[in-house]
C-alpha cells in the first residue's frame, strides 16, 4: 500500500500526488454543494481547513526541522492583513468574473509578504536554540501585532472591516491539500531529508555536507508563506481583522495542534488541527466550564499520550530535540 505517510521516500511521492488530486477534487465537489450547508457548520469547516494549513506549515518548522517557533500567529497576521488590503483596494476595480483571480493574487501576496518576514525571523534562528528561539519568535509575533495596532492604514486598533467574502470551503480545502502536498513532498524529497537530518542531529548533518543554516531558514520561509496564505483565507472568511486576534495565545493554539498531532507527523497534525478546532465548539454547551475542560484535556492528553494523540508509537528519535 503506497502511502504518503510511509517513511519510505520512494513510494511517498506517488501517494502524495494522489492525495493532492483527491483533495482538490473533493474541494471542487464540496464547493458545488456548499450553498446547502448550514452556515454555522460551514464556517467551522472552513476554520478546520485554515487550522490544517497553519498546523501543517508550523509542523515544517517545529516538527520536521526541530526548531521552536512561537510566532506563527504573527506570520498569519502579516499574510491576512496584506491579502485583505489588496482585495479591499482592488475589488471595486475588478469585474466579478475576475474576482477569483484577485483572491488568488491576494493570497499569494499575503503568503509572499509573510515569507519575507519569515526570512527575517529565520536569520536569528541561525544563532539561537530552544527557549531562546522560542522567545525571539514570540517577540517577533508581538512586534508585528504592535506595529499593526499602530498602522492607521489597516484600521489600527479598531480593525480592518468590510473585507469581501471570498473564502469558500472549496478554496480552503484545495489550499489545505496543496499545503499538505508541498510540505510532505518537500520533507520526503532527497533535498528535504535534510530537514529531518538537521532535526535529528545538527552536528552530524553538517558534517555530512548538509547546511543546517539553509534548511532552517528554508523551513521558516516556507512555513511562513503558508501561514500567510492561511491568514489571507482567514481574513476573507471572517471579513474582519483586528490585531488582538493574532496575539501569542493564537500561536500557542497552533503549537498545541502540532504537539498533539505528534511533531513531524503530518496525518496526526491534520487530525489534531481538526479536533482542536472542533473541541471548543463541541464544548460550547458547557458554557462557562468550556475552557476549564479544554485546558484539562490538554493536560490529560500530555500525560496519557505525550508522543501525540495520533501516532502509533514513539518516533525513532528526537521528539525531545528542541
Amino acid at each position: 500500500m503506497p502511502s504518503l505517510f510511509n517513511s519510505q521516500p520512494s513510494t511517498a511521492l506517488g501517494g502524495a500526488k494522489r492525495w493532492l488530486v483527491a483533495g482538490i477534487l473533493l474541494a471542487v465537489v464540496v464547493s458545488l454543494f456548499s450553498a446547502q450547508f448550514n452556515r454555522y457548520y460551514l464556517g467551522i469547516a472552513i476554520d478546520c481547513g485554515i487550522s490544517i494549513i497553519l498546523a501543517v506549515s508550523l509542523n515544517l518548522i517545529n516538527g520536521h526541522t526541530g526548531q521552536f517557533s512561537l510566532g506563527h500567529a504573527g506570520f498569519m497576521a502579516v499574510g491576512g492583513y496584506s491579502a485583505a488590503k489588496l482585495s479591499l483596494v482592488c475589488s471595486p476595480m475588478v469585474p466579478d468574473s475576475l474576482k477569483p483571480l484577485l483572491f488568488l493574487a491576494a493570497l499569494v501576496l499575503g503568503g509572499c509578504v509573510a515569507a519575507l518576514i519569515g526570512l527575517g525571523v529565520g536569520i536569528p534562528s541561525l544563532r539561537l536554540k530552544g527557549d531562546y528561539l522560542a522567545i525571539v519568535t514570540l517577540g517577533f509575533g508581538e512586534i508585528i501585532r504592535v506595529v499593526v495596532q499602530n498602522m492607521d492604514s489597516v484600521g489600527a486598533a479598531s480593525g480592518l472591516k468590510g473585507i469581501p467574502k471570498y473564502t469558500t470551503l472549496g478554496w480552503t480545502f484545495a489550499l489545505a491539500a496543496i499545503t499538505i502536498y508541498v510540505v510532505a513532498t518537500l520533507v520526503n524529497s532527497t533535498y528535504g531529508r535534510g530537514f529531518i537530518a538537521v532535526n535529528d542531529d545538527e552536528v552530524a548533518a553538517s558534517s555530512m555536507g548538509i547546511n543546517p543554516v539553509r534548511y532552517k531558514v528554508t523551513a521558516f520561509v516556507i512555513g511562513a508563506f503558508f501561514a500567510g496564505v492561511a491568514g489571507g483565507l482567514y481574513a476573507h472568511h471572517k471579513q474582519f481583522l483586528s490585531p488582538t486576534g493574532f496575539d501569542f495565545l493564537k500561536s500557542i493554539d497552533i503549537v498545541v495542534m502540532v504537539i498533539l498531532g505528534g511533531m513531524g507527523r503530518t496525518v496526526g497534525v491534520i487530525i489534531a488541527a481538526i479536533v482542536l478546532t472542533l473541541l471548543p465548539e463541541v464544548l460550547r454547551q458547557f458554557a462557562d466550564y468550556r475552557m476549564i475542560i479544554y485546558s484539562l484535556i490538554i493536560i490529560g492528553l500530555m500525560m496519557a499520550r505525550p508522543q501525540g494523540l495520533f501516532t502509533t508509537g514513539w518516533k525513532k528519535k528526537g521528539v525531545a530535540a528542541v
Partner: protein
Amino acid sequence: MLIRWQYVALLVGGGLLGLTGCGKSGGGDTILVGEFASLTGKEATFGTSSHEGTLLAIEELNAAGGVMGKKFELKTEDDQSKAGEPANVVNKLISKDGVIAVLGEVASSRSLEAAPICQQNGIPMISPASTNPKVTETGDYIFRVCFIDPFQGTVMANFATKTLKATKVAVFTDVKSDYSKGLAKFFKEGFTKAGGQIVSELDFNGGDKDFKGQLTAIKTAAPDAVFVPGYYTDVALICIQAKQLGLNVPLFGGDGWESDTLVKIGGDAVEGHYFSTHYASDAASPKVTAFVEAYKKRYNGKVPDAMAALGYDSAKFLADGISRAGSTDGAKLRDALAATKEFDAVTGKMAINAQRDAVKAAVILQVKGGAFKFVETVAP
C-alpha cells in the same frame, strides 16, 4: 503509520453529510433571542456586566408576560474576548439555534466581526456599548443603544473648554482599545477647534499596571487637565499613580469610567475627577432607581455599571421593537427599530437616527465623597 486514503475520504464524506444539518427555526411559543458577550478572557469584566444587565431585562420582560403573549428565551454564547470567535458564535446563534435577533458586544472590534453575519442573514443586531461609528455602517440591520465616539468626544471637549476652563490638555489613550482611540480622536478635534492646545499625547496598553513613565512625561508638559478615555479598571490605577507623582490636575474621561469599582480601587485618588456617561444615579428618574434596585437585588448587592445599564437597555429596546412591529420577522423588526422616535431607556430617552445610532443626552458626573455627583447635562 499507514493510512488508507480511501478511509479518510469516507470519513470526510461522512463529515460533509453532517454539514448539511439544518438549524431549527425559532418558532413555537417562545421568542429566541441570541446574545454574545465576553464572559471569559481579557475583557470578561465588561462582558459579564452587560450580560447581567441583559439577563435582568429578559427576566423582567418574562415576569411581565413577555411580548405578544410569548416569553423570551435568551441564548447566550461566550466569545472569550477573542477575535475570530464572534463570527462562529453569531453564525451558530443564527444558523443553528435560529434566533430572531442578536444582542452584543461591548467591544466594537467584536461587534464589527459579528455585524456582517447578522446583516447577510437579515437578523437585527443591537449592540449595547460599541461606540465606534463604523459598527452600524455595516448595514441597515445593525443598531446600538449607546452614543457614539464623535458625540462623546465632542461633549468632553466642550466640557474641558467651558466648565474646566482648560487651555492645555494632555491626552492619555489606551492604544489597544478602539473605544479609547475613537474618543481621543474626536476629543482632540473638538478641543483644538475650540482653541485649546494638546500639550502631550501618550499611550498605554489596556491591562497595564504601571503608568508612571507616561504620567511623569505628562506632568512635565504641565497640562491644565488630562483626558483619559479608558475603562475603569485601568483608569483607577492611572488616578492612583498620577496622585503619587503629584499630578494634581483634574482627570476626565468617558462612560468607560462608570463603575463602583473605580471608587473601590481608586479610593481618594479618583476624588474630584470627571467623566461623561448616560445617567446620574443621584439625580435620577424613578426608572433608573428601579433598575439599580432590581439589579442589586438580582446580583447580591452589586451596583450596575454603564455596561450593565446598556445591556439592560439593549434587551428592552429589542422587546419594544418587537411589540411595535407585531412580528419577529427580521425585516419588519428592523423597520420598527429604525423608526424609533422615542424610547425611554434607563440610560436616557433615546431616538434612533438615520445611521441607526442612538441619539440621547449625556450627563457629566464628578467623583465626590466616593460617589458620582451630577454636574451637567449635555443635550445631543
